[in-house]
C-alpha cells in the first residue's frame, strides 16, 4: 500500500503541483476510535478519483474535511480555492427558482451564465421552476450546474446518485463524464457502486477503518465497456477489497 502511495506522489510531484494534498490526516469524534487515521492522499489537477468503502468507513468525513465543513484537527490538508460540493440531496433552496439557485453560487453570475450551465446539464427548460417541482434526477442536475458555475478546480461528489433509480443513475453518470471532460476539474466521487467508479474514474481508492486500503489506477480507455476483460478483473479486485467475494 505504501508503495502505491509513494508511486503516486512521485508521479504528480514531477508533473505539476497536486490539486489536493492530504498528509497524516486524523479525525476522531469523542473517545471513539479515529474515523480517519493518519490518512495520506494526493489528487492531481484534472484527475478523477473514486472513493469507495463500507458505510461508516469515513468517506463523508474525509470529504467534509476537504470541503472545509469539518475542521482539520490533526494533519495537513491543502485544496484549491475554488471548490464545489454536491451531496446526496440536492440542497437547492426551495424558495429560489432553479436558475436563481445556480446563480447564487457565484458572486458575479448573470442569468445568462446560469442558463448556459443549466443547458449543459440538460435542464434549461426548467430554469424558472421551483425546486420542489423537480424530480430527483432533475434536482441533482441543478445541483451539478450550481457546483460547476463556480468553475471549481476541485469538485467533490458525495454519493450524488445514490437516491436515484438505476436508469436515471446511468444517465447522470454519462453526464458527469461529459462535464468532467469539458471542465477539467479534479474530482473526488464518493460512491458505493463499483461499476460507477470503474466507468468514471482514473483511480479508485478503498477506505477502511480510516485508512486507505487500496489505491488502484484504472488504466482503461474511455468510453469504457463493462464487457472489457480488464474492467472485469478490476471489478473483481475492487469487490474483494470491499469484502464481497464473487
Amino acid at each position, binding site marked *: 500500500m505504501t508503495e502505491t502511495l509513494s508511486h503516486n506522489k512521485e508521479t504528480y510531484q514531477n508533473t505539476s503541483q497536486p490539486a489536493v494534498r492530504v498528509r497524516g490526516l486524523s479525525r476522531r469524534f469523542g473517545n471513539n476510535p479515529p474515523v480517519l487515521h493518519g490518512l495520506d492522499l494526493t489528487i492531481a489537477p484534472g484527475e478523477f478519483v473514486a472513493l469507495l468503502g463500507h458505510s461508516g468507513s469515513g468517506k463523508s468525513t474525509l470529504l467534509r474535511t476537504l470541503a472545509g465543513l469539518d475542521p482539520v484537527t490533526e494533519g495537513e490538508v491543502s485544496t484549491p480555492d475554488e471548490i464545489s460540493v454536491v451531496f446526496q440531496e440536492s440542497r437547492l433552496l426551495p*424558495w429560489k427558482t432553479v436558475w436563481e439557485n445556480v446563480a447564487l*453560487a457565484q458572486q458575479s453570475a448573470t442569468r445568462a451564465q446560469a442558463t448556459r450551465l443549466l443547458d449543459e446539464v440538460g435542464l434549461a427548460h426548467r430554469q424558472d421552476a*421551483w425546486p420542489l417541482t423537480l424530480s430527483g434526477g432533475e434536482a441533482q442536475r441543478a445541483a451539478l450546474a450550481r457546483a460547476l458555475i463556480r468553475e471549481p478546480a476541485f469538485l467533490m461528489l458525495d454519493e450524488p446518485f445514490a437516491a436515484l433509480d438505476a436508469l436515471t443513475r446511468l444517465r447522470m453518470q454519462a453526464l458527469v463524464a461529459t462535464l468532467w471532460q469539458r471542465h477539467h476539474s479534479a474530482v473526488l466521487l464518493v460512491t458505493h457502486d463499483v461499476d460507477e467508479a470503474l466507468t468514471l474514474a482514473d483511480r479508485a481508492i478503498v477506505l477502511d477503518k480510516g485508512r486507505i486500503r487500496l489505491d488502484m489506477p484504472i488504466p482503461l480507455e474511455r468510453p469504457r465497456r463493462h464487457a472489457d476483460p480488464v474492467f472485469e478483473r478490476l471489478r473483481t479486485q475492487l469487490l474483494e477489497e470491499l469484502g464481497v467475494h464473487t
Partner: protein
Amino acid sequence: MSGASFHNAPPLLPRDKASLAAPPAHPRHQKTGTRGPIHRIRWSVLPALGRYASPVILVLLWQAACSTGLISTRLFASPLQILATGWGLAQDGTLQANLGVSLLRAASGLALALATGISLALIAALSRIGENVIDAPIQILRTLPVLALAPLFILWFGIGELPKVLLVALGATFPVYLNLHKGIRAIDPKLLEMAHTIGLSRWQRIRNVILPGALPDLLVGTRLAVSIAWLMLVVAEQINASSGIGHMMMDAQDFLRTDIIFVGLAIYGLLGLISDQGVRILERRALVWRQPSAQGRGQNHD
C-alpha cells in the same frame, strides 16, 4: 395562483371540493387557466348561500324582535337603526375621523412590533449571547397577560398616543418574536452548510437562506400579531382616549346609545376580518414556492 384562493375560501361545499379533486373529468377547463375558476364560482354560489343563510335569518329575527317591541331598543339597537346610525356617523365625518385615529394606532403599533420582534428574533436565534440575553427574559415576560400592563403604561406614558401604540406594540411583538425564532431554529442545517460551501457571507446567508426559510413562521406570527393588535387597541382606547373607535363607543355608553356601540363593534369586526385576509393574501403571494402545483405540472420524471 389564481385557483389557490378557492382552497382557502371557507370551503364548506362538498360538491365544489369534488370538482377540484377530480379535474380530469373536465379536460376542457383544465387547459385554460382562466376558465376553471369561473366555472367553480358558479358551482359554489348555492352552497355558499346555504352557509350564510343562518346568520341572515338571525339578523332578520333580531330586527323583527326589535320592531315588535320584544327587545328594548334602548339595550339592543335594531339592525336597521345600526345601519342608519352608521350612515349618519359616516355622513358627518365622525366615523372616518375616529377610524383614522384607530387605524393609525394599530398600524404604528404593528410596525413597531414587527421591527422589534424581527430584530430580537434574529439576534437571539443567530448568536449564543443573544440567545442567553434575549430569549430567557422574553420567555418569562410572555407569560404575563399584557393587558394587565395597561394601567402602568398610562402612569408611565400619560394619556397621549404613546401608551396606546406601545401597548399594541408590546402585545404584538411576542407572536412575531416567538414564531420567527422557532422558524429560524428549524431551518435545515444542510441548507446552511450548502450556503457555506458556495461561499455566502453571513449577511447573504441571512438574506437568502435564513429569512426566506423562516418566512412561513414569520407570517404565522404576523397573523397572530394582527389579531392581538386589535385586541390591545380595543382595551387601550376604552380605558383612556379622546378619539378612536373605542372612545366613540365609550362616549356612546354615557348616552345609552347602543346603536353607536354596535356600529363600533361592527367596525372592529370588519377591521379584524380585512386585516386577517390581507395577511393571508400576503402569505399566498410570498409562499408560492410551497405549492408545486402553482408552477406547472408537479412532479416530473426524466
